């Protein structure tokens, strides 16, 4: 087993009085593309936000890159980046300016470093001249590609992507998988969520199935398929959530 990037132990999270996550355990290894898969309302977004330290939690332990969350967030936030599920760019800013703003934040305000990041971001977003338009004029998929590029351009040690492919067309989502694989080669570990299992089967090296706030299976895609003795992830998932 390689270096552990994210470690979640016995995590319990309530919203108000309602328990959302129960006794969650999750391990993300360095260099993996780890997918958290589950139906709507399973708790994927809540889990990612808790890992990122945006949400507090009742009990358990969350470690990211060896730092305790949420206490050591200010260190961790320099090393990671996050694409929320329903994030929007600043619509009065151009695509370029949206990238530049985050690049300046990640580079600590150093222009040269930021410009290099933006260069990569423009390449990743593949938006052509639209990058110089206000993002208010973008389609949903164009916005998603811009934001994904913004998340990866800073070459984080960990990228947390909540449903990265939502709203993105087939060609773009194929391209996106290439981009993710490329990012991993450059040293980024990826933790993502989704419910389109077919799409994710192609890229994920590891999966965690989540249902009703509980992890029902975890491991490398091969391990998981083997343990349910099935040929593909979808069948494994249906078995895991007890739908068959």
């Amino acid at each position, binding site marked *: 087993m390689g270096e552990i990037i994210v470690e979640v132990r016995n995590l319990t999270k309530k919203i108000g009085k309602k328990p959302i996550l129960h006794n969650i355990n999750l391990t993300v290894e360095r260099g993996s593309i780890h997918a958290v898969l589950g139906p709507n309302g399973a708790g994927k977004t809540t889990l990612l936000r808790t890992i990122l330290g945006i*949400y507090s939690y009742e009990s358990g332990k969350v470690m990211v890159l060896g730092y305790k969350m949420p206490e050591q967030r200010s260190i961790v936030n320099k090393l990671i980046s996050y694409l929320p599920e329903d994030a*929007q760019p600043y619509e*009065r800013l151009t695509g370029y300016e949206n990238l530049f703003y985050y690049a*300046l*934040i990640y580079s600590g*305000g150093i222009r040269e470093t930021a410009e290099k990041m933006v260069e990569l971001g423009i390449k990743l977003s593949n938006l052509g001249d639209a990058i110089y338009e206000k993002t208010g004029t973008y389609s949903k998929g164009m916005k998603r590609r811009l934001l994904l590029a913004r998340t990866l351009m800073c070459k984080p040690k960990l990228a947390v992507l909540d449903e990265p492919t939502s709203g993105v067309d087939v060609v773009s989502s194929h391209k996106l998988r290439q981009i993710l694989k490329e990012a991993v080669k450059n040293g980024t570990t990826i933790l993502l969520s989704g419910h389109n299992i077919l799409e994710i089967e192609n890229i994920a090296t590891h999966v965690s199935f989540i249902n009703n706030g509980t992890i029902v299976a975890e491991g490398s895609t091969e391990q998981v398929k083997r343990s349910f003795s099935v040929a593909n992830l979808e069948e494994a998932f249906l078995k895991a959530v007890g739908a068959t």
Partner: protein
Amino acid sequence: MPSLLRVVLWKEIIDLLRDRRTLVATLFMPLVGLPLLALITGAAVSQETIVIHVIVEDPNNETISFADSFYQQYIDELNKYSLSYTIVMTNDSNLSGVQVAIIFPVGFSQNMTRLDGTARVYVSVLLGSPAAERAAQIARMVLSSMEYQMIIQRVENLSSIAGIQVDPYSLLNPIAIYSASHKPGGQAATSKEVGVASSARLLEFALFFVANPAIFYMIDSFMGEKERRTIESLLATPIPRRTLVAGKLLSSVIVGLIVAFGDFAGVMIYFYLTYSAGLVFTPGLVIVHVVTSLLLVILTASMALPIAIRAGSVRAAQGMALVMTLIAMSIYFTALVVDITSLSLTSRAIFESIPLTHAVLVIHYYILGETMRSLLHILVMGAFAVAFYIIGTALVNDEKLVMFRD
């Protein structure tokens, strides 16, 4: 300035300035609306034509000649106030279609010419017409000046009957009242100083308009980003919370000031159009006003910070900010009307615990020539602003900035 703060400022300011509609909307009311209001009111008032009848019911010649003389003087006065009117002298007592009637009833001259008679004149005004009320006021003024002439005439008659020599003016004015102003040290205030003091009061009213746009931008800052779904990813970046708060506060203040400058111009034009006479602005007063405005904008924006961060939604923030503004406004205007410095210690402490009061005090003490105390209240305003900034920073809670809550 720390470089990340510059980065946040850069983004916030272009974001706010590119929102032209909002900018124009916030500028419109004071910069265009107020002067327009003054012009429209002025134009409407001067266009209103008042129908005036001078009704002479008493056929006696002396009444007719008195009424005639009133009629001439009245027209002179009406013209002085540049009112628009039609006036006729008639013996028809029908008041329909008439807005102001000055009626000399039967028996007028008989009472007027008696040494101790009281002659009656009726001034009747159409209900609910402010313009008619103004014209009637002028009629009363003319009548009383004519009355004064008659009193003097009577005194002269009396003195000749009694065979004594008197000066009727002194006889009628045993006491003359003179007005003057002085400063706290007891020195007499010059007429210029009096003018500056009353101009300063108008400026204090104008201050209130100056604070509003910044509040408006402030409350949108965090809740607006929450609702526009732009804040969540930002919370996972290395940007320190205090930098984010400071950036949003400063950008609201800067854009708020740009708008406030326009507002200020609008309010000044409004005052100029409505009270043109008697405004005296010295460089000192203008500087004090600009400094106070700046601080007031920073102060009110930072007071809105806790609301901006914790309200939960833009709508809730707007509601809370409205309540805050109304409370602040009532206190502020009370502070303008009441001389806080002469209140009992407890009442004064209550007023002074409200940050906005200090803006009034800065100008108040400046006019009295107490520069040090004026400066002290500037510092108090600054201290309040810093306190609210610290509170605001402490209130930033990522979970609350992201999660929907009832």
